[in-house]
């Protein structure tokens, strides 16, 4: 008990002081003082419920990704069959039940078709993305594999997260946090943003821009009834556009996607004084746009954004400068939003806000103040109680408690964890429960003394016997705190983090640390009696 080798002492003090020192920058900042820039500065982040700001949870429809993928596959198959030498004719194409199936006009083409399609079934890195089946020798069925869909959803989410990040950066907000959560969700946290309206409008646009030729052969009555001619599809006019409430039929093929843009800026058309968005294509996009407009002069083409038609102007002359102008009843804000969205790229999948929380900065500041006050009063009460009950051993427990709080804060700062409002409650709980280990030890020492054990043996036994219960109790605590961390998000997770780190610092400061101090004192003074 009394033997504490030097290396052990150095190690214990080393751990304690290192962790406690890391708490200093956070304390400095909380006290309003400035931490010198020359020194490293690990600080605890404040959660949104303390700093104020907005939290959004966005969700993508995985079905959308799958549907989109099926559509792309359909395009690719048509293209491949057309480009085959000689051409393979197919018909009766259907994309029902999430599978693509089609008939070959000539059954003898089956092996050639298979040869062409087989390489397309394989994605990158050897994941089989589609299953190819031949039914009745003439019908081919392509079904997406589970792993293929998963990969596609994952890719879509990766790029969606990137797009969200770019758009938020364009807004110029302070230090947003953008994290993927689970398979189809993105968490966006923007500190200091009191009104997330603009942000949400920006994220609500997928910004899929398409230019498609208007199908002029479609009967207006059919179009309004939603019946599209073969090879065409019907889109409604956007809200606020000139023909709101009406629809228009456009050719499926031969259009241009707006994903080949190099720039987009909001502006005003000097002739009409309308708000417009000017876009610039990259080389390839510019060439294709030029070809499309040259081949279709004097025909209308539709500018479609997120499956709604903005306008369907006539092509007066070929547009070959690589830039174009989009008009469509914008105001300055919506033009600017669209420009940002187009610049940062289209979202590969639409996102909806399924959870949103906004906390005012005043409330956060108020919470911190009240939380700190409560923590201070609580700590003082605990300390008074401990010293009154256990005397010298209570003083050791108190010093341990101070180090405990400092270490907890220091480790949180080092790990760059976030302190949330429930996290403050976690701190208080840790303070209240941390002395439990010391109480257990001291009560044991009292008992051992009562049984007539000598001082040193009593202390040694007290520590040993109490350790068992301390470890058991802390492990069960750890189990429930971990579940709290897994299940909770945001503020609740902050609570769990404090509890978990607090368990470790409490056990560390209550057992080896106080033991070292007690051992030192016993060795120096060799008391015949102790007052516990």
């Amino acid at each position: 008990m009394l033997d504490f080798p030097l290396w052990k002492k150095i190690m214990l003090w080393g751990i304690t002081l290192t962790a406690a020192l890391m708490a200093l920058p956070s304390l400095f900042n909380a006290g309003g003082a400035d931490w010198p820039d020359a020194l490293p500065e690990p600080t605890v982040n404040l959660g949104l419920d303390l700093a104020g700001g907005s939290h959004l949870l966005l969700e993508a429809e995985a079905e959308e990704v799958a549907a989109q993928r099926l559509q792309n596959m359909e395009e690719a198959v048509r293209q491949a069959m057309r480009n085959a030498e000689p051409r393979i004719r197919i018909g009766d194409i259907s994309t029902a039940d999430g599978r693509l199936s089609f008939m070959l006009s000539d059954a003898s083409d089956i092996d050639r078709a298979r040869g062409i399609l087989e390489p397309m079934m394989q994605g990158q890195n050897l994941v089989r993305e589609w299953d190819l089946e031949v039914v009745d020798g003439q019908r081919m069925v392509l079904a997406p594999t589970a792993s293929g869909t998963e990969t596609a959803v994952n890719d879509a989410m990766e790029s969606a997260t990137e797009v969200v990040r770019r758009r938020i950066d364009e807004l110029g907000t302070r230090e947003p946090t953008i994290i993927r959560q689970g398979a189809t969700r993105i968490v966006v946290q923007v500190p200091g943003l009191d009104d997330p309206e603009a942000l949400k409008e920006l994220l609500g646009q997928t910004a899929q821009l398409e230019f498609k030729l208007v199908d002029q052969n479609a009967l207006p009555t059919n179009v309004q009834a939603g019946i599209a001619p073969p090879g065409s599809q019907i889109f409604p006019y956007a809200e606020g556009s000139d023909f709101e409430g009406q629809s228009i039929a456009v050719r499926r093929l031969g259009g241009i996607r707006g994903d080949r843009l190099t720039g987009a800026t909001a502006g005003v058309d000097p002739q009409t004084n309308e708000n417009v968005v000017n876009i610039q294509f990259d080389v390839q996009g510019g060439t294709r746009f030029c070809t499309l407009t040259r081949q279709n002069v004097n025909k209308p083409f539709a500018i479609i954004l997120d499956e709604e038609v903005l306008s369907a102007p006539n092509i007066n002359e070929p547009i070959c400068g690589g830039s174009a102008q989009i008009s469509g009843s914008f105001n300055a804000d919506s033009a600017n939003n669209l420009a940002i969205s187009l610049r940062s790229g289209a979202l590969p999948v639409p996102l909806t806000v399924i959870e949103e929380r906004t906390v005012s900065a005043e409330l956060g500041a108020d919470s911190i103040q009240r939380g700190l006050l409560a923590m201070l009063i609580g700590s003082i009460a605990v300390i008074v109680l401990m010293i009154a009950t256990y005397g010298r051993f209570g003083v050791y427990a108190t010093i341990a408690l101070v180090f405990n709080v400092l270490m907890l804060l220091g480790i949180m700062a080092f790990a760059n964890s976030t302190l949330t409002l429930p996290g403050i409650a976690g701190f208080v709980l840790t303070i209240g429960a941390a002395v439990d280990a010391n109480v257990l030890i001291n009560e044991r020492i009292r008992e051992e003394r009562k049984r007539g054990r000598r001082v040193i043996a009593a202390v040694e036994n007290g520590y040993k016997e109490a350790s068992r219960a301390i470890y058991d109790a802390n492990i069960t605590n750890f189990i429930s705190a971990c579940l709290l961390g897994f299940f909770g998000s945001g503020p609740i997770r902050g609570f769990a983090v404090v509890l978990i780190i607090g368990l470790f610092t409490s056990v560390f400061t209550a057992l080896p640390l106080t033991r070292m101090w007690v051992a030192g004192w016993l060795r120096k003074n060799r008391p015949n009696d102790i007052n516990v």
Partner: protein
Amino acid sequence: MKLLKLVPADTNIKFLKLRVPFFAISMLLIVASWTAVMTQGLNYGVDFAGGQEVQLTFEGIDQAPVADLREKVAGLGYGTPVVQEFGAPNIVSIRVPLPEDVESTPGAATEIGNEVIALIDSQYENVRTDGNNTVSGKVAEEFRSSAALALALAMIGVAMYIWIRFEWQFGVGALFALFHDVSLTLGLFAVFQLEFSLQIIAAILAIIGYSLNDTIVVYDRIRENLKKFRKMPLPELLDLSVNETLARTVMTSLTLLVALLPLLLFGPASLFGLVFAITVGLFVGTYSSVYLAAPILIWLGVNSDSFVPQETEADIQERKARGEGQARPASPIE
């Protein structure tokens, strides 16, 4: 220096004499709690109910005009709003259910919140908006199921651990004590219709951890005494163990209480629910470790055969010094 002794050195309270009536009372309370939860239901906050929630502080007055607000917000036509105090009499949370079509239109839900805020701003002075939150039905449903799952897993997880470390009877005892604590906390929230949110689930999980602290300390002592006094009748042994650990139980509950009380009295209003639940859990948990976790061992028939006695080095020396051949119970002889 005279030290404070909260619990006299040699208590010999006959806790277990009253085990049957206390157990009956506990069972009644559990049934009553679940009845309250089933009939009155829990007053779900926005986390679990979904909808749009606005939090407001009425500065400069002591009491927010709750009834008045209810009437005014109902006038907006979004169904019956839930208006309640939120941790302090002048802070309110107002929750309105969201219309079906809102969830698919971005921004529509917040718009409703803004309408509520605008309405109140126009009618009252010095109102501070603290928050405007949307939780969609889908997310609320996920919160509900994951909360239930977390509670169940936590209870089963810790019971398994205790079973591994002690004996199956101890695991069952701990699980029952936990079930009692969780039930009573839920019952209290149902009876008083306090807002039940994610924070409360966090509090209950913390209660599970801390209530077990007590149970484990008592169990640890029972295990030790089972090894020491192999001939002692079980009820007597349990009484002895509870008495031996009483000083520690009282002290720890007290330190936790003095830490929590300032938070309850002066802490942030939005933490009130969480701290209140933990404080309730503290009392309930301490009671259940003494009156439920311990007596269950009698009914489940624990014996000392599985705990091989292991004398510590100190015990052996002590016995030799006293010249005894066999360890004797140190309990007072009546």
